[in-house]
Every structure is written in structure tokens, then in C-alpha cells.
């Protein structure tokens, strides 16, 4: 695959806590591919994947700290980028 070296992913538990996060990722990352596995969702993308605090907050109706993603995270690949407004992974080979 030509893009293989730039692939990143986030894998999240497929539960109620993660649902708004997964929806936010879909909204903010149109290039992402969502794959469903038993009890887990793996989201692949070329180059970068971002979870935006604002987008999640819109969906859940309360303040949300991007680090809350730790409760639902299964696995990831890429270099972690995080600040008060977002959590993501990127790779630039």
C-alpha cells in the first residue's frame, strides 16, 4: 500500500462512553475509515486523526476533557498530539 507508512489509528471500546467520541471523530476527520470489531471500533486514517473537545461537548451536553479518552482507549498508532482542546495521533514519514 502506498500510504502504509503514514497510517495512524485509534481503537476505542464500543460502549456508551466512547459513542460520542467516535461520532466526533467521524465528523472532524472525513478521511477516516471506521472498522467495527467485536466490542471495539478501530478508526484508521492517513496522516492524522483528531478528537476535538468542542465537538464532543456538543454531543454530550457537558464540559469534556480530551484526556477522558483514556477511559475508552484500547490502542493507538502514531505520535500523540494533545493539548486542552484536542487529542490526536499523527504520522509524517
Amino acid at each position, binding site marked *: 500500500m502506498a500510504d*502504509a*507508512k503514514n497510517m495512524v489509528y485509534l481503537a476505542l*471500546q464500543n460502549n456508551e462512553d466512547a459513542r460520542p467520541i467516535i461520532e466526533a471523530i467521524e465528523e472532524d476527520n472525513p478521511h477516516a475509515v471506521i472498522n467495527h470489531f*467485536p*466490542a471495539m471500533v478501530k478508526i484508521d486514517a492517513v496522516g492524522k486523526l483528531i478528537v476535538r473537545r468542542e465537538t464532543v461537548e456538543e454531543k454530550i451536553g457537558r464540559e469534556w*476533557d480530551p*484526556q*477522558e479518552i*483514556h*477511559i*475508552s*482507549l*484500547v*490502542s*493507538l498508532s502514531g505520535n*500523540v498530539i*494533545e*493539548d*486542552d482542546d484536542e487529542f490526536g495521533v499523527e504520522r509524517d514519514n
Partner: protein
Amino acid sequence: MSRKLNLRERYQRMTRDLAWEPSYQSKSDIYPQMEFEGIKIEDWDKWEDPFRLTMDSYWKYQAEKERKLYSIIDAFAQNNGHMNVTDARYVNALKLFLTGVSPLEYAAHRGFAMVGRQFPGAGAQVACQMQSIDELRHVQTQIHTISHYNKYFNGFHDFRHMHDRVWYLSVPKSFFDDAMSAGPFEFITAISFSFEYVLTNLLFMPFMSGAAFNGDMATVTFGFSAQSDESRHMTLGLEVIKFMAEQHPDNIPIIQGWIDKWFWRGYRLLTLVGMMMDYMLPKKVMSWREAWEIYFEQNGGALFEDLARYGLRMPKYWEQTIEGKDHITHQAWGIFYNYTHAAAFHTWMPDNEEMDWLSAKYPDSFDQYYRPRFEHWREQAEAGNRFYNPTLPMLCQTCQIPMGFTEPGDPTTIGFRASDFEGNRYHFCSDGCKDIFDNEPQKFCQAWMPVHQIYQGNCGGATVPEVLDWYHLNFGVDNFDYEQSPDKKNWDKWKGQAAEEPEAPDEAA
């Protein structure tokens, strides 16, 4: 006007900025283990923290995970969740897990606390300290989760004691003893990189998916609860390798040597997991062969292509694992079938449906080499002549597994290697294990080998019952074939499949 610190600033203030340069003690006195392995670190500030998790956030999110986990464990216990497993044969996988894997989590807790103390860099210290607490949490949650099964099934009652004494448990025990008695850089390469990054999917996925497929909600829940910790561990493993490789070119051959050693040790250790996947799950997830193809051949291949830029290559003898994937699980199940009279879990022969699954998953090996002996054993067991090997096995000095592995290319011949050291001969199952010994003979000549210790009279006595007593194994209860076991009798009664009155659960807790 004051303002709140942002994440980057908070992280900097609460980790790196809390470190200091010592002014009245030398760094080499404070950190005495930094030199002897030959690893050269010029600048610890080049360490890139994989996550920006401060301790207050860590406690908050870990506590949240604990609350969720324990409420599910409570529900599981209140609803007799153990009755939902596919059948009681599955529970033997949990016995292997509690006695073989959980103590390794505890060892990892100690090991990361030790290396966290020995590394001079603040970023590395924080990551190791958090992992140490993660691993303590894992052993605790595993014990809590599996303790429910201890009320209803045998073999769980003295896992800590058994880990230190029982013959097959010296395999995982010696793995971690080796890592913990190594220096900090070797420890972190062995555990964070080789185990928690390269091979992690081959330990975690089989047990957790196995639990999911076989109705074990408690273990599934533990698995999910631990998985997000694992993502931190994985990123630490990768960062460790990159950091050491980038700090000095002299580090590369040392790192490569450790990658070679710990890949092979991990591969041998994972034989037990592969055996569990292929033989101990009434509902199978996938075969060991398939798991190895996905998680090592494909994923591992891509990883090492990536690491080639540092001058690192695939681990030595990796090609033998490709050939081995068709054989090691059947050989391992054969070992445990031979010695079930001395094991704290039950074994059995696969039924026809299971043998056909094995034939389909192992088209190049199962029918030719393993089905004949399994069918013979099954016939004999049905005739009341179940096979138990009356003689202690020969062990490999390095991996400590009975020497049941065959020569690459010839699955009908046991593989033998040997070395002489200071007037003694040592035996090995493979080139990989021999190389490990030859590189550090002063270490491996000190191995506490279960069979040798029994013959030296150090294990409670000369007879099997005396040794089993020394193991705290309950004779006639924990051991022997599943078919005659109290576990099966109880299961059949609870499921209404037996004629007699139900018995009270075993009070071995």
C-alpha cells in the same frame, strides 16, 4: 491577571520542572546502574513523553476505570456469572492465567518501580512510575476478577505459592526473573518493547477474546479496563527503542542483542498462550497459526521495516517461528497431557469436531503428525487406560520448557543443542535458547530447574504425591483429566446434566 495553565505548561511544570541537577552528590552515585550495560545516553531531555498525563489526571481516570470495573464484577458475582461460560473446560485457561500471568504483572510492577528509580530522566521516571502502578492495578484486578471462580472451581487456591514452585510455572517465572535481574536498559527493552509492544497482542488478545467468546464476562471486563493502560505501555515501548537508538550509535548492537534474546524468550513463553487458544477454548477465536501470521508476521514485519532506519533488523531466528507456528501448540498440549497428574489444571483430548477444526487450521501438520497420537490417547482413555508419563522430562536450560520441540524441518525428531560451561553440560531446545545461554552463562547456570531440584530432593520428597503436596496441589482434585474431575462433576450437576443431587461448591478458598 492570573490564568490557568494549559496542558502543555501543566505537564512541563509537574514533571520536567520538578527535576533538578544534583549539586552535592554525583550523578553516578545517585544513578549507579547507568553505565554497566554499555548504553550511552547523552541528553535525557531528548526523551519524548508519549502522553502528557499528570498524576492528578492519572488518578482521576484510573479511579473512574476502577469504579466501572468493580461494579461489573459485583454484578457478575451476584448473578452467578460463572454459569454462563461455554463449559467448565474453559475455566482451566483461567487457572493457567492466574498462576502463570498474574504474578508476572506483579513482577512488572516491581520491575518498573526499580527502573523508574534508576533512570535519571524525568520523562522516563514518570512513565515508568505510572506503569508500575498500572501493573499493580492489573494484578489486583485480575485477582479480584478471578477470585469469583475460586469459589466454584479447583486449582486457584494458592496461585502465588504455585508460581514459585510448580514445574511449568518456572517458565513464566524465570522469564521475569531474567528481566528483573538484568540492568534497567535491558529490562525496559525486554518488557516495554519486546513484550508490551512487539508481542503484546499475542498475549492479550487470545485471553481476552477467548473470554469473550466463552461467556466469561468478568475477564472480558478486566481486559477492557486494562486495555487503555496497555496503549500507554505500548507507546512507552516504542519511545524507549527510538530514544536509545537515537542517543548514540554504540547502542545499536547492544539493543539488537536484547531484541534477539527477548524475542526468542517471549516466543517460547507464548507457547503456553498458543496452546490455550488451540486447545483450551470450547469456542475458538482463531488458531495460533493465524494469530502469529497477523500479529507477528504482518505487524511485526512492518515494525522492523520502520526500525531499519536505525540499523535494527528482524530478531534472530524469526524464520524458525514461521515453521514453528504449525507445531508448537500441539507439542505443548502433548506435554501437558503427558503430565496432567502433576498439573494444577485439567487437560483432555479434543473431540471429533475439535480435531476437524485443528485439521482445517493446520493443513500442513495436524493430520500428519498429531492426530494419530491424539486419537490413540483418546481410545486408550475411553478404555480406562489414560496415558500419564511416569518419568520426569528433560528441560531446556534457558526457556525451562520440557524439550518437546522438534528440529526445524523435521517434526518427528526432537531438537537438541548443548554447551559446556565450567565443567558442566547444559542442554537446550533450540539455537535461540543456546545462544541466550552462551551470551550469559554465568546467569543461566544458576537457573532453578524444577526437574533437577526434584532429583536433588529439594521439593518435598522423592515421590509424586510428596512433590504435589509441596506444590500445595490437591491430589485427585486439581490434577488429572477433566473427564474424571470434581470440576466436571460439579458443572454437570449445576447444569442439570447429572442424575445425582448437587454438591456444595468446593471450599478450597
